[in-house]
């Protein structure tokens, strides 16, 4: 190769080389464009490699990109030269711009040169812990590339996959699952801990990632959960077995809450605009959902039939398979499968398949009427398929067998021979079911042998006559006579049937046909086809008695004229569902390379606790909180803290023995509990007085025991809570229960903590808003404020304190709320009814609202015994969060994870009165419910919090600079919250 290169330099490309070597970017660009166009047209441009690769570090970004395109295409062929470019990409991997880092990794990992495997490995590992989720996504994409280059790296790559699976951003989720599917789909254990997260992230993942995740989770669910239809299936079997035994065996089925979670979180995606996503959810429901719930997918699949014909083609294949197992769900959409003359043939045939599968006693007449129009179509392949379909309807539905048969017989006089032939074949199958009733049809068909030429049809007719020769005793020998005459000119399949007919007639009516049979057998003996010669020899031995005739000839009649079972006309889609629906393998009905079998349901469910996740973050948060507290009041605190710790320790130990749900679950419980605890600590301040009496009780051992049981019960309940939203009430009562428990046990600790809290908690004046004006309220005025207290019945709710003042001279009774109108996802815990508000008095009540981290208003009616008022509560964004304590390092770390679009920076000019640290802190904390983060510099104030509903971190930094200028930075995963918060804080600091 090198030699030819030397001796025959491509003259054509010299101009391009010159342009690439020039100093002007414009000519470089022009050259690269021409080269890329060559590649696009499939022309060889490999000889330009040295000239192109020189430009890999070109400043012009488009030139650079086109060089990348070239490099990826030819690096494999020119490995040595390609290595020259590697250092550029290595430099790019360290670039401060995340986009450049990502693109460097993309190109580096696309260069298929084995020698750089270690470099790639290193780059991927580094990128997997990059701050930017976009770079991490690219790392996930690079994993399968490296794996295909060097499968030896599998173990190391699995480590990276494991790390990336733990990533919490939607951007990464789809890509890493794709890498998982390609590198280590068998490592289902890696999914356990991420299962719930993936389910919850799913709706926000980009479309392509959704497809990959849903398909993977379908397989996962098949290994981890029980068959939801197990009892239904058993019922079918039960009919055969003795009932008592089956009943004894039957266990009540309870769906794992995680199984439910998957079904619930995928369902909305049936509304996706992306057909692949809809299909993915549909197959998930088909393979995983209880029978009663599968129906929801039908509507979505029928919708896809409106899409491009390629989409229709795939969807119809899957619908065809589904209609065999779950016919009912598509019945309402029967008409959506009606065929238009403009449909491509393959679509027509598939629709026909579905219509046939859907046919039953009630709709068959409609379907047959529809079929009648199809038979007249100009598309003959389609007509043939329709005739087959009619045959299948006739075999499946006894009531219409005669109608179908008559219809088909009429088709025998059709002008088109193909139609006639197809009809003959189908009629033959139908007649086998009740031959005695239809000797006239057989006669009719016998006459057709004179005209019909299609071999398959001729063969079918001959077989029929032979089989039922007793029903047409006069005609059969005559047909044989004609056939003997034309024997030599017939096709092979027809010849075989002539021999067959001859044999059968010989056995039943040897008198008339003996000679004819001999004649036919003689002709066959010298036929060119050895099958026919063999058959003739075999039959002669069997039917014609000779001296040395074997034992078999006694049974000749039994052999030939045995009662043959009627053929079963089956859908070609029967049992296709052993392939995962929606897959390529299902479509081809053959296993494609890399196909992962859909596992059978397990007999017994594997341990569900493997999916429990320790809530590390909150534990850590509490830890630091405690740490801080400790440092302030060490002496007071130590004993109480330790006490509670040891208590929970012993508990988790015993819990694992008894509950059988594993120690880990117990641990996670512990984690979430401490979170609650944390919230309560703050809430305690005001409720303190109320509860004090209760709290002071010392925990004794029997109570301890009871608490353990209570806790277990609670955990089980918590699981079921996630199963269905209707049980919300219950869970609410639970959390209040847990509250009292906690206060029981850790009473002492709390008492002390509360004191500490008072010193830490920022004093913030709460702002009141008007809910109902005195005049519109006809004397009742209502104001509300966000008390910033945790709402104890439900940690996800924002507490709203409402103050009612009765300005009238009459008592107001039965103050309560009604008709709550909420945006989706939002929830309200109503305040308890105020029975009496005497004239001139004021009272307060607390309600909780889960705003779902949005500033949408909660609308409701405020009712008294006589009037109703429409009111609404809209929260300022700053009230949608609760403070969390972070250390400076934690703050910086978290901030590093929330860059890019999650970071908003604004420059501002501080208000004159607000140029010291104290004032800034005061104003920020008034504007938003955040807590201060300790900081070494007095130029910077940092604040942290989490949104109430989704617990997304909210980080605020105000860095003051010279002459009253400052920079405000908000990092928050929820961009809308971030944006709004910036506005509010900006306003607070500048006015």
């Amino acid at each position, binding site marked *: 190769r090198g030699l030819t290169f030397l001796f025959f330099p491509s003259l054509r490309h010299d101009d391009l080389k010159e342009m690439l070597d020039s100093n002007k970017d*414009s000519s470089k660009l022009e050259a690269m*464009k021409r080269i*890329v*166009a060559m*590649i*696009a*047209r499939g022309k060889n441009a490999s000889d330009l490699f040295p000239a192109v690769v020189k430009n890999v570090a070109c400043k012009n970004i*488009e030139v650079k*990109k086109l060089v990348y395109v070239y490099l990826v295409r030819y690096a494999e062929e020119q490995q040595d030269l390609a290595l020259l470019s590697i250092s550029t990409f290595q430099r790019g991997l360290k670039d401060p711009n*995340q986009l450049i880092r990502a693109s460097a990794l*993309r190109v580096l990992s696309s260069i*298929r040169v084995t020698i750089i495997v270690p470099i790639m490995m290193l780059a991927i590992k580094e990128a997997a812990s990059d701050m930017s989720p*976009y770079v991490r996504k690219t790392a996930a*994409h690079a994993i*399968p590339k490296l794996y*295909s280059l060097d499968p030896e790296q599998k173990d190391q790559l699995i480590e990276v996959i494991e790390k990336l699976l733990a990533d919490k951003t939607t951007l990464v989720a789809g890509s890493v699952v794709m890498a998982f*599917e*390609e590198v280590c789909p068998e490592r289902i254990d890696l999914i356990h801990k991420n299962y719930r997260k993936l389910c919850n992230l799913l709706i*926000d993942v*980009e*479309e*392509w990632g959704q497809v990959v995740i849903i398909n993977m989770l379908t397989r996962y669910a098949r290994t981890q959960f029980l068959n939801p239809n197990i009892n239904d299936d058993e019922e079918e079997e039960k009919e055969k077995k003795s009932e008592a035994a089956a009943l004894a065996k039957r266990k009540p089925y309870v769906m794992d809450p995680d199984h439910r979670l998957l079904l619930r979180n995928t369902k*909305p995606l049936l509304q*996706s*605009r992306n*057909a*692949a996503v809809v299909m993915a959810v549909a197959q998930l429901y088909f393979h995983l959902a209880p029978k009663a719930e599968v129906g929801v997918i039908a*509507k*979505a699949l*029928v*919708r896809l039939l*409106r899409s*491009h*014909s*390629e989409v229709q083609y*795939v969807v119809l294949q899957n619908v065809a398979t589904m209609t065999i197992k779950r016919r009912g769900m598509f019945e309402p959409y029967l008409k959506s499968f*009606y065929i238009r003359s403009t449909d491509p043939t*393959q679509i027509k045939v598939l629709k026909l398949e579905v219509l046939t599968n859907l046919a039953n006693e009630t709709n068959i007449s409609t379907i047959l009427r*529809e079929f009648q*129009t199809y038979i007249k179509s*100009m598309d003959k392949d389609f007509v043939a398929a329709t005739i087959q379909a009619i045959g299948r309807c006739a075999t499946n539905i006894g009531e219409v067998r005669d109608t179908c048969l008559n219809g088909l017989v009429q088709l025998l006089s059709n*002008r088109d021979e193909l139609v006639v032939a197809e009809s003959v074949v189908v009629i033959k199958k139908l007649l086998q079911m009740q031959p005695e009733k239809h000797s006239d049809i057989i006669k009719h068909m016998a006459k057709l042998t004179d005209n019909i030429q299609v071999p398959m049809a001729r063969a079918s007719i001959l077989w029929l006559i032979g089989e039922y020769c007793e029903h047409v005793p006069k005609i059969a020998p005559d047909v044989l006579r004609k056939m003997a005459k034309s024997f030599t000119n017939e096709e092979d399949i027809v010849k075989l049937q002539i021999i067959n007919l001859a044999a059968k007639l010989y056995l039943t009516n040897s008198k008339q046909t003996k000679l004819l049979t001999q004649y036919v057998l003689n002709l066959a003996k010298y036929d060119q086809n050895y099958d026919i010669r063999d058959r003739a020899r075999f039959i002669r031995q069997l039917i014609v008695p000779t001296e040395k005739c074997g034992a078999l000839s006694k049974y000749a009649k039994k052999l030939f004229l045995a009662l043959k079972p009627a053929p079963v006309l089956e859908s070609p889609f029967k049992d296709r569902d052993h392939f995962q629906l929606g897959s*390529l*393998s299902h*479509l*081809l009905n*053959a296993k*494609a*390379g*890399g196909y*992962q079998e859909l596992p059978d349901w397990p007999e017994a469910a594997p341990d569900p606790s493997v999916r429990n996740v320790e809530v590390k973050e909150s534990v850590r948060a509490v830890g630091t909180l405690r740490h801080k507290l400790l440092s302030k009041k060490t002496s007071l605190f130590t004993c109480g803290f330790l006490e509670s710790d040891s208590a929970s320790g012993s508990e988790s130990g015993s819990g694992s023995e008894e509950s059988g749900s594993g120690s880990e679950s117990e641990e996670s419980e512990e984690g979430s509990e401490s979170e609650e605890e944390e919230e309560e600590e703050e809430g305690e301040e005001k409720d303190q007085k109320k509860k004090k009496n209760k709290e002071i009780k010392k925990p004794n051992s029997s109570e301890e025991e009871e608490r353990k049981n209570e806790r277990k019960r609670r955990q089980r309940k918590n699981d079921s809570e996630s199963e269905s939203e209707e049980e919300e009430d219950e869970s609410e009562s639970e959390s209040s229960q847990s509250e009292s428990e906690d206060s029981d046990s850790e009473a002492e600790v709390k008492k002390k903590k509360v004191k500490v809290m008072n010193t830490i908690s920022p004093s913030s004046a709460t702002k009141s808003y008007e809910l109902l004006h005195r005049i519109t309220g006809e004397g009742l005025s209502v104001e509300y404020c966000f008390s910033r207290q945790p709402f104890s019945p439900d940690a996800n709710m924002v507490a709203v304190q409402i103050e009612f003042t009765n300005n009238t001279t009459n008592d107001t009774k039965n103050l309560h709320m009604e008709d709550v109108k*909420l*945006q*989706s*996802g939002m929830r309200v815990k109503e305040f308890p009814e105020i029975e009496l508000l005497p004239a001139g008095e004021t009272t307060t009540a607390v309600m909780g609202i889960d705003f779902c981290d949005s500033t949408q208003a909660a609308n409701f009616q405020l009712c008294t015994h006589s009037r109703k008022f429409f009111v609404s509560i809209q929260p300022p964004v700053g009230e949608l969060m609760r403070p969390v304590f972070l250390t400076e390092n934690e703050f910086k770390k978290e901030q590093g994870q929330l860059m*890019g679009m*999650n970071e908003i920076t604004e420059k501002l000019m501080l208000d004159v009165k607000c140029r010291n640290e104290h004032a800034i802190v005061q104003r920020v904390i008034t504007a938003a419910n955040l807590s201060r983060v300790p900081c070494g510099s007095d130029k910077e104030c940092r604040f942290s919090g989490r949104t109430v509903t989704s617990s997304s971190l909210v980080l605020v930094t105000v860095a003051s600079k010279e002459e009253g200028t400052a920079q405000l930075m908000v990092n928050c*995963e929820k*961009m809308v919250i971030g*944006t709004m918060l910036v506005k509010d804080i900006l306003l607070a600091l500048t006015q």
Partner: protein
Amino acid sequence: MLGFFVGEMIHSLFLINLSGDIFLEKHWKSVVGRSVLDYFFEAKEKAVNPEDVAPVLQTPHHYLISIYRGKIFFLAVIQTEVPPLFVIEFLHRVADTFQDYFGECSENVIKDNLVIVYELLEEMLDNGFPLATESNVLKEMIRPPTILRSVVNTLTGGTNVGDMLPTGQLSNIPWRRAGVKYTNNEAYFDVIEEIDAILDKSGTTVFAEIQGVIEACVKLTGMPDLTLSFMNPRLLDDVSFHPCVRFKRWESERVLSFIPPDGNFTLMTYHVSSQNLVAIPIYVKQNISFFETGSCGRLDITIGPKQTMGKTVEGLMVTVPMPKAVLSVNLTASQGNFTYDLATKVLVWDIGKLNPQKLPNLKGSLSVQAGAPKPEENPALNINLKIQQVAISGLKVNRLDMYGEKYKPFKGVKYVTKAGKFQVRT
């Protein structure tokens, strides 16, 4: 690689025109030779129409998944298991992107913009897995060609490639560009409904349904948060949304709440509940017959208004694919023009506006190839029509509100009804 391979979604892409020329190829992994396409060409030869080529073909070592758009086959080469719809949907997205960038998706336009096409493909797939398929994101990275820019670029050596961060790609709202600014802020919504119907010989409705789509053109500054509500959302039976629509709000309140992409997009598609009777705007009286002898036939079609909601039916057009034996037609139209394509045997009658006082009629004789048997089936009539200012289902937008931004946008909603797959059997 020693016979070892891992799956990647899409290995290679070929663009092939109707005459079988490959005018673009792109490989995301090692190069796949063109010979793999022989299986495709074989299938293409056999197919009567290009639409009849099976979208999924199997070869000994590869699978070929193709779509047919704009007289081009987009063919993806696959090596391992992958959901076929995943590939098909992606290929259509590629075609949509070309359409969006160049105004049309045709061989010529792709050939003229080969480099941009290549750059687009590079961004849309990474290692065969879709990377950036949102048009808003792509447009930030690769600017669509305009005449002005291409002139400036040739003069200055400027580029089509954006050097900015494609912010959408990195955010939770990948469909919207950041920092959008307009002097005129406007949001327009087109509610387009299509009637799919099959009418039988006697004019009875065999099957009818309404499919709707809301196309949006939103040019609003900043990060607007819109809600759109309907007067009668109960009409909507089945819906599918652009990813921007918050599904939970829809479920609980039947309100569309969304941060829109910038520019044109399809907000939702819907199906009108089949409980509602579908208004069929026209009736068709037709008589097409072929005589047993004399190798000729007769055709007589009259169209009249039926349930038009008091509006004028426009853009009326009848397309009749004739049996192959029909050699020529000798017809007179009382209104509009008709053409008969001798090669494809398709009769097109372009009527235009439907005047209820003077019903359009097409009448005359058909001459059939001598000696050919009388066609078994009469051809079906495919109807096109348009009714402005009405959504035939009666769907009405109630209001559009904007949150998150302070300015007042111009808002507009337009309704139009069209015939979808509207077929009259004869």
